[in-house]
């Protein structure tokens, strides 16, 4: 099903400048795979080559970080909003 995906500023150029786009899937992993299929310039920035979540991004379903849910297997429902933000860290 289609869900809204909020993009961080760093990924917006890959989606023609949009801050929110639509992608389809029944799990977070499917939605992100569909996102990258639609916007190939995001490849390698959201998912790693082996299909796992890139460690430099945080992904949320509504208010919840998917790392504390079922990660890429987290189910999404109609009306859910997925947000992608950079993981912000340093030394």
């Amino acid at each position, binding site marked *: 099903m289609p869900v809204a995906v909020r993009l*961080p*500023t*760093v990924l917006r150029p890959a989606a023609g400048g949009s*801050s929110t786009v639509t992608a389809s899937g029944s799990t977070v992993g499917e939605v992100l795979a569909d996102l990258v299929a639609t916007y190939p310039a995001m490849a390698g920035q959201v998912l790693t080559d082996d299909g796992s979540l890139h460690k*430099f991004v*945080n992904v*949320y379903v509504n*208010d919840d*970080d998917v790392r504390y849910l079922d990660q890429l297997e987290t189910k999404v429902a109609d009306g859910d909003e997925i*947000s992608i*933000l*950079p*993981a*912000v*860290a*340093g*030394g």
Partner: protein
Amino acid sequence: MLRLPAPVHAQIVGHCLGGLPDEACGLLGGDAPTALVSTCYPTRNLAASAKLYTVDPAQHLRADRDAESRGEQIIGVFHSHTHTDAYPSPTDVAQAPDPAWHYVLVSLRDTHPVLRSYRIVDGRIEEEPVLVDGR
């Protein structure tokens, strides 16, 4: 140039001092084209370390939504260095999340905090002036 209203400047430095002995961190909301920061979003340092910081992802999401609701966005991040200069560390450069962001460093090494701002693009560090309103 990064433009900081004096109360925002004070909030950044205050949050950094309050985080001692660990590094402190937070996000900066504002207007990207003019680099005017309107809101300081202090966040927890999940690394709870004097040498590393990790912005709490849940607080990041809330800050991002709040900025968006104001028609603004997160335009940068700040964190403290407790024992070194206000200059990005190799870790800061390697993990810089967005080339459009402003990277504010606050050194607490000396008696008086020192705040500086940088752009980090493709691993290259460039300092930028910081204009504190009212000075």
